[in-house]
């Protein structure tokens, strides 16, 4: 053997490191061979290609030295796929090892064979695996259990036909809790794969699915208290999937799972919360519900003292839990105060949760805290804190005045980004309390020069337009923006347009020239179709029926409110059933990010069919999946109950409401505070819902426009209409 290699060496001398390694791997000295294997693994670790040494490494597989064996196995796992022909040479040793007297070796062989993922070797796996599942040593059995899931992953039919999956079901009744936990883990893994693999429209193979029966339930509840922390997570995962027969059983599960709240491992705690949230749905006993909610709070609070990464997962989940049960942490707002050195992603979440917990009782403390944050150095966090002050004002009516005062304090610091954010926030406060804080307007207008961010500008312009009749020099202020119209961002253009029309409707004498100018610029020179369309609509409205224009543009708008949930109710239930998982962290159903190709409605249907959940949930689910396809899901912040209203208002409900009378659809849609960057929302806010009595006063029409009939369609004119328009000009 050495000779053969020696010849190769002579033919190509100094073939580099691999050549030397090859020589050493075939050395007659044990130590040198082992050392060579280590060097091979070291090279593999740093990414050098050592696959060429496959046969030489393989020769060292049969050894008494466990460490060496492990290294060779590791090498095999890495390169089996690239050398499928040669892997077969390893089979003998594997089979022999699976019969070794040392359980460590037996388990190692089984574990590694499952990881090789080479078709050739799989056929030889059956016998050793069958033995492993019946091994007297629990360590080997628990390794075997997971190996069945590995086998299923490569060759499902083999795992089922050879009875391995049904053997797993038997292992759920094993005397050893660790074996039970791994059997449950393997069965759940197979269950998920089976559902994913089932062809469209067909049910998954029933032999691969893991339906938890009452008998299994009892075994799981017993093993739960005995197995390791990770085993507990696996079992709790399953308990959350279990469909209780009646409320008594749900209560029983809750009572048995509750002690897990005291576990030191945060993932045990969160997964236990998941089980409780699922089964609490069926609990009838009020006293038990109270107890469960009361017991849930302290462990959640404790997670906030954990490492930042764990904290973050906990915070995201708490945010979700609060949407369902705002009472869980009602007295605990202080624990969410931001620490000076919290990472940014933690601070953002804490702010969000503090707003959720804000109420009459704690709003003062919260405000002074938010004010403190607003003077920190992290610009992004400062902005969010200012925003939070606005949310506070909108959520807790009685605090609005104090919030406004804090905002005025902040504006007086003249720190540019603080002022701009405060202006944006003030606009939202006006949208909630239109008549209370007009005295603030001069202060805001005094900062007009300093604004350079589109959102802040747009907000101030909106305020000027809204209170045009009360601001003496509104025309001068707006003229500044009309002057620079073409240089502004398009949301500023939209707001300038609307504000000028409002001014004109309120004080026709002051603004004729201005409105004329802005409409002309917007229709002729502007590139944004949205701005053009809006200008056309105003123009047409003003020229045909100024009364209607007034009714539309100056209509009374419903006050805004904070959405109570960030996801539709059905999705919220879905996510609460997955507390601790990535879906609950993202606040998105798993189907939206797992990336198993396109997210088809079919896949969703299948998964919901299996769960036999209510059709409401299914519907909500599809809506979200579609929303995800089109854009960012996090902006989807309307509660499901109002979903319909929102969708229709986005389609131009504002306009249609002019024809549909006071019961306009827009009135029902709560307008989110944070979406003012969305031009469609602006439309909703601009066009109110109720059409007031048309005033008799009709302003003179400044331009010779052809009369148009007001068409109650969407703001974007239909193609033929557009042609007409173009023909006219």
């Amino acid at each position, binding site marked *: 053997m050495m000779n053969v290699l020696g010849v190769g060496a002579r033919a190509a001398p100094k073939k580099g490191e691999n050549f030397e390694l090859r020589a050493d791997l075939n050395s007659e000295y044990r130590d040198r061979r082992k050392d060579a294997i280590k060097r091979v693994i070291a090279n593999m670790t740093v990414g050098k290609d050592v696959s060429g040494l496959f046969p030489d490494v393989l020769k060292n597989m049969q050894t008494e030295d466990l460490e060496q064996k492990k290294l060779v196995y590791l090498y095999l*796992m890495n390169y089996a796929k690239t050398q499928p022909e040669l892997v077969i040479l390893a089979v003998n040793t594997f089979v022999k090892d699976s019969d070794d007297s040392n359980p460590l070796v037996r388990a190692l062989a089984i574990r590694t064979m499952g990881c090789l993922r080479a078709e050739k070797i799989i056929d030889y796996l059956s016998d050793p695996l069958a033995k492993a599942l019946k091994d007297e040593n629990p360590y080997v059995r628990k390794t075997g259990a997971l190996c069945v899931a590995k086998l299923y992953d490569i060759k499902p039919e083999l795992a089922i036909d050879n009875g391995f999956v049904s053997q797993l079901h038997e292992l759920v009744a094993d005397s050893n809790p660790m074996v039970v936990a791994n059997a449950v883990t393997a069965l759940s893994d197979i269950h998920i794969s089976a559902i994913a693999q089932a062809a469209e429209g067909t049910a998954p193979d029933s032999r691969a699915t893991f339906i938890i029966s009452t008998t299994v339930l009892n075994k799981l509840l017993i093993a739960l208290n005995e197995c390791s922390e*990770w085993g507990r997570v*696996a079992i709790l995962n399953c308990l959350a999937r279990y469909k209780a027969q009646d409320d008594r059983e749900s209560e029983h599960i809750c009572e048995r799972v509750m002690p897990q709240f005291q576990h030191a491992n945060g993932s045990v705690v969160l997964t236990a919360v998941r089980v409780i949230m699922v089964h609490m749905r069926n609990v009838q006993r009020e006293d038990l519900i109270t107890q469960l909610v009361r017991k849930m709070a302290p*462990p959640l609070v404790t997670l906030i003292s954990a490492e930042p990464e764990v904290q973050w997962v906990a915070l995201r989940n708490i945010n979700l839990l609060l949407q369902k049960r705002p009472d869980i942490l009602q007295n605990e707002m202080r624990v969410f105060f931001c620490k000076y050195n919290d990472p940014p992603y933690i601070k953002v979440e804490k702010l969000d949760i503090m707003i959720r917990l804000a109420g009459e009782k704690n709003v003062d403390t919260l405000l002074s805290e938010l004010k403190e944050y607003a003077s920190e150095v992290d610009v992004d966090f400062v902005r969010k804190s200012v925003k939070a002050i606005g949310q506070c004002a909108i959520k807790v009516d009685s605090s609005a005045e104090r919030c406004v005062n804090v905002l005025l304090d902040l504006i007086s610091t003249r720190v540019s980004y603080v002022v701009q954010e405060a202006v944006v926030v003030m606009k939202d406060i006006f949208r909630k309390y239109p008549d209370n804080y007009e005295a603030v307007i001069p202060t805001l207008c005094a900062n007009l020069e300093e604004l350079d961010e589109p959102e802040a500008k747009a907000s101030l312009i909106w305020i000027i337009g809204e209170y045009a009749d009360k601001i003496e020099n509104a025309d001068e202020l707006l003229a500044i923006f009309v002057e620079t119209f073409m240089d502004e961002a398009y949301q500023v253009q939209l707001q300038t347009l609307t504000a000028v029309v409002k001014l004109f409707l309120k004080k026709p004498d002051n603004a004729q020239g201005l409105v004329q100018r802005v409409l002309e610029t917007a229709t002729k020179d502007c590139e944004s179709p949205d701005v053009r369309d809006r200008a056309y609509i105003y123009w047409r409205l003003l020229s045909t029926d100024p009364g209607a224009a007034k009714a539309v543009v100056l209509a009374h708008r419903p006050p805004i409110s904070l959405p109570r949930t960030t996801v539709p109710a059905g999705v919220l239930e879905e996510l609460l059933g997955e507390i601790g*998982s990535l879906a609950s*962290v993202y606040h998105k159903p798993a189907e939206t990010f797992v990336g198993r190709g396109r997210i088809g409605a079919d896949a969703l249907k299948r998964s919901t069919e299996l769960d036999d959940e209510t059709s409401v949930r299914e519907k909500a689910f599809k809506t979200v999946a579609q929303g995800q396809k089109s854009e960012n899901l996090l902006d989807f912040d309307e509660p499901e109950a109002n979903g319909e209203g929102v969708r229709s208002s986005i389609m131009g409900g504002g306009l249609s409401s002019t024809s549909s009378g006071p019961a306009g659809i827009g009135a029902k849609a709560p307008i989110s505070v944070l979406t003012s960057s969305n031009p469609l929302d602006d439309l909703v806010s601009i066009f109110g819902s109720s059409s007031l009595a048309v005033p008799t006063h009709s302003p003179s029409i400044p331009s010779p426009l052809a009369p148009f009939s007001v068409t109650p369609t969407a703001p974007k004119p239909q193609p033929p209409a557009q042609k007409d328009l173009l023909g006219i000009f």
Partner: protein
Amino acid sequence: MASLVAILDLKGKSLIQRSYRDDVPATHIERFLPLVLEMEEEGHPVTPCFTNQGVNFTYIRHSNLYLLALSKRNPNAAEIILWLQHLTTVLVEYFKELEEESIRDNFVIIYELLDEMMDFGYPQTTESKILQEYITQESHKLEVQVRPPQALTNAVSWRSEGIRYRKNEVFLDVVESVNLLVNANGNVIRSEILGAVKMKCYLSGMPELRLGLNDKVMFESTGRTSRGKAIEMEDIKFHQCVRLARFENDRTISFIPPDGEFELMSYRLSTPVKPLIWVEAAVESHKGRVEYMVKVKAQFKRRSSANNVEIYVPVPDDADSPKFRASTGSVAYAPDKSAFVWKIKQLGGGREFLMRAHFGLPSVKNVEDGERRAPITVKFEIPYFTVSGIQVRYLKIVEKSGYQALPWVRYITQHGDDYSLRTAQEKGSAAIVPM
């Protein structure tokens, strides 16, 4: 469920990795850091989990390393993050320090650990004491082949049988960390006590232990009236050795302990705490210089004293030419922390001290903008004392061989990771509340 686990250096280069499932190619590891940088650049906070191109990235930071797990599907995020933390703990216990060098030097053993601690992406054994029984740095020296410790699959997975000590002893440390936040007006706006009962267990065999505390809930449920004060712990977390169902039933803390050092339980109290160490600073800014007058007061009983007190007072980033005068202890400038540190070896209860600091400010700045508002932070330890008043009433040790074991108990109160006071006040801007 993780498909691939890797430890990366700060440049995003993989130092060691292990693939557990086939569904995520290793090439995704290289995408990790660029994605993080991209998010940072776009101004999004980089969260510990994110998904890109259908692959979930979950990671934690440890000193100069990223520990990264890649996955598909919808895994249990909490489980992955905690497993990564357990991995860190185990590696630290094996190599003392976890850093690039220790990984390079020990790759063989890390592969072995990765193989044992996770299988097919599911966490397995993460008890480092048990792992050390059969995965050792000197395995090749062993004549006899190691076998899986019974504990691996026992119901008692944290303790091996056959442990022997000549002298059976248990040391209990009750450590309470105080976190609090004092606002500019001198009011405590947030405070909590994080307590931990740490044990060092040198006991033979399989001992059964029972720990008795002055737990208010237990006293009430058993109708016992306590002689001293009973305390109400808001949330208690136990090491996995404690029987949770038993505790839920009758508040008994019963367990078979692991061998050696471990944390038996932790608890939390949010009862209001008076600042044990009060610090306030009057700041006087002039053109080109700034002066501080700092006052510290130990607000606890005279018979106790605080050790190793360190007071961090923030100063502007560019402060230079420091001058200090302190009535006790020593003061040093720590430019890397933008603060000066006043160290007092021992601070007696009820005592009060003053110090003055003077700095030059080279750059002329508007006082208003960019003002740093870092709070004053304090570090300290007060031995033989717990803020909560928790007491160990008894520790019963029963082993079938019937030996006598001695329990030792020690109490200590210290600063938590957030003991901060926003009491550095510009002179004349707000009145300092009299104490």
